């Protein structure tokens, strides 16, 4: 007997108004109208040969053609031994207390960058984003930022800098000097442009854009920003993808869940990150997946959305303070 099965890495995420199929191997999202959900659920628990009887020959032909489409697209397959294809265990576990950090940095020396990097390293942090609030020369960037990263396990650094006269070639030579520097974003620039893109070399990229992040620090959620994969999909089941195991330090040195959040958890010169980031109050929002948040819980993108928005609680319900522009009912952005 033959059965229809989606690959375990191709996941249907049902939304209230519309659904999606996430291809976690290939980082692609397909739209799936809700009208198809019922039949898909039915055919997964029924061998093909029983379908003509259940649906009648004409409807069966339609359904079979529909299923064949998924197989052609390599999202699904037919098998005579469905018992051999268990689902993926969606438990998410990572051996790092902090996985990523956003660090604002001005020339005002409000906090010791070196000490923060040392602490983040101890916490297992893998990636940092450094947001420069003012111009740093290449030698300042080397001395004050990149040097601190040497001998740490932080393996990914992106730098956001205001537009200045440093050329792409100069940034590339900094990347050669410290390969952990993988991305440079030039903000408040005259143009939106990709200045350099080398996937072969650690995915290096230099991008400029017009927006000034100092004036507008809220992130815009767009469909193109979603890139589903097994790591984020499992994390999103039980955690807030945008906030989990993240720490932010603003230009004044105050510790936050994220730069744009109003709540602070003390000053980094007075408190150890290890102490602050283990407090239940600091971690609370890490464990608020989109499944728990009003609006988001109905959305088909809830397991890939990277919104960093703050979350507020009202009458035992959770809400994002910044909602995205996606209109679920019309399926438009």
């Amino acid at each position: 007997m033959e059965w229809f099965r989606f690959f375990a890495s191709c996941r249907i995420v049902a939304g209230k108004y519309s659904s999606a199929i996430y291809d976690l191997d290939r980082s692609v999202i397909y739209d799936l109208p809700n009208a198809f959900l019922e039949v898909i659920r039915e055919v997964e628990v029924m061998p093909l040969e029983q379908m003509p009887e259940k649906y009648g020959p004409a409807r069966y032909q339609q359904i079979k053609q529909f299923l064949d489409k998924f197989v052609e697209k390599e999202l699904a397959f037919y098998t005579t031994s469905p018992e051999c294809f268990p689902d993926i265990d969606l438990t998410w576990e990572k051996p790092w207390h902090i996985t990523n950090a956003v660090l604002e940095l001005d020339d005002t020396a409000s906090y010791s960058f070196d000490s923060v990097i040392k602490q983040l390293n101890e916490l297992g942090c893998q990636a940092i984003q450094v947001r420069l609030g003012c111009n740093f020369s290449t030698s300042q960037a080397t001395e004050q930022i990149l040097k601190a990263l040497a001998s740490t396990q932080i393996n990914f650094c992106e730098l956001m800098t205001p537009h200045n006269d440093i050329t792409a070639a100069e940034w590339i030579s900094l990347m050669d000097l410290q390969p952990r520097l993988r991305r440079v974003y030039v903000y408040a620039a005259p143009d939106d442009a990709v200045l350099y893109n080398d996937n072969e070399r650690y995915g290096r990229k230099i991008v400029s854009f017009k927006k000034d992040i100092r004036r507008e620090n809220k992130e815009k959620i767009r469909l193109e920003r979603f890139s589903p994969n097994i790591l984020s999909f499992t994390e999103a089941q039980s955690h807030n993808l945008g906030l989990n195991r993240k720490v932010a330090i603003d230009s004044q040195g105050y510790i936050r869940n994220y730069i744009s959040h109003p709540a602070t958890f003390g000053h980094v010169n007075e408190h150890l990150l290890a102490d602050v980031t283990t407090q239940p109050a600091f971690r609370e929002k890490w464990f608020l997946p989109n499944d728990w948040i009003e609006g988001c819980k109905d959305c088909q993108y809830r397991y890939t959305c990277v919104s960093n928005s703050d979350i507020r609680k009202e009458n035992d319900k959770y809400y994002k303070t910044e909602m995205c522009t996606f209109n679920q009912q019309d399926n438009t952005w």
Partner: protein
Amino acid sequence: MVLIISKDLEPSTDKVIDWLRYLKVPFRRVNGTDMLNPGHAPTLQVSSKQADMHFNGEASAALSDITAVWYRRDGSKPPDTQAIASLQEAGYYQDVVHHLSQENAIAKKALYALLASHTRILGSFSKSSVNKIEVLINAQQQGLDVPATLITRSKKELQAFMDAHPIITKALWESPGITIQEEKATNYTSYTEEVTPDMLQAIPEEFFYSLFQEKLDKELDLRVFYLDGDCYTMAIFSQMNQQTKVDFRKYANNRNVPYQLPADIEQLIVKLMKAMQLNTGSLDFVKTRTGRYVFLEVNPVGQYDMTSVPCNYQLDKKIAQYLSQHA
């Protein structure tokens, strides 16, 4: 303390270390090349009362501190010949170099033997590479299905073998490939290839020892990571893509999903691994369209990240836990 013997730039070692740190299990990593560095090299002592060793250097470790060892890999390099540089012109120079490498090799083997007699070892010092054919014979003896295999130097025998079924050829050993220096260096990696009638025609009557196997009518490639009695299996749908039909390593975008092997096949895997005295390794199988589970080979130090990540098996954590249970 967990002792990890590995090599530079070995990502799985780094990931297991992340877990050991997270689980607060003390560890010491020694790369193969460290053992040649006098600052870190281990010292061995044997007397009528005891056999002992310790690692030197900043993070020194005594034998009594070591509770479990993970033998991951063991990147080595030729001995440092600086001290004998003045002999370079001498006719016996290569003999001296050979002598020194053997001295290193024996010291290392002695160290491994001492560790193995004192602590639990995950991995196998002596079997970081295995003889494929020896393993195939062992697997066949344990009751696993194996592909029809011919090792020959004769075209006549090859012809007869090929008359029975389509065939493939691959290297007998774990060849890292051959680098050919032309205008620029090109690395030719050893893959599995089908032998076509045209190829057969071009082959001389006698040739160098070569391995031929029946070409299996694959439904799936299966990769099994084995850890202390448990099998973590992944199915690779290599048949969707022309490029990977013969060798799945040629294309990275296959479908890779968790797979549940039949219980009797898992039992035979446990039997084979016990017979080979291996407590970990990566095994390759093919499931044919007729339902055969055909064993191909085992790699005691194989990469497992490509199985762990898509199936979310968390193998780095499981390895760290195995090591810490003995710590």
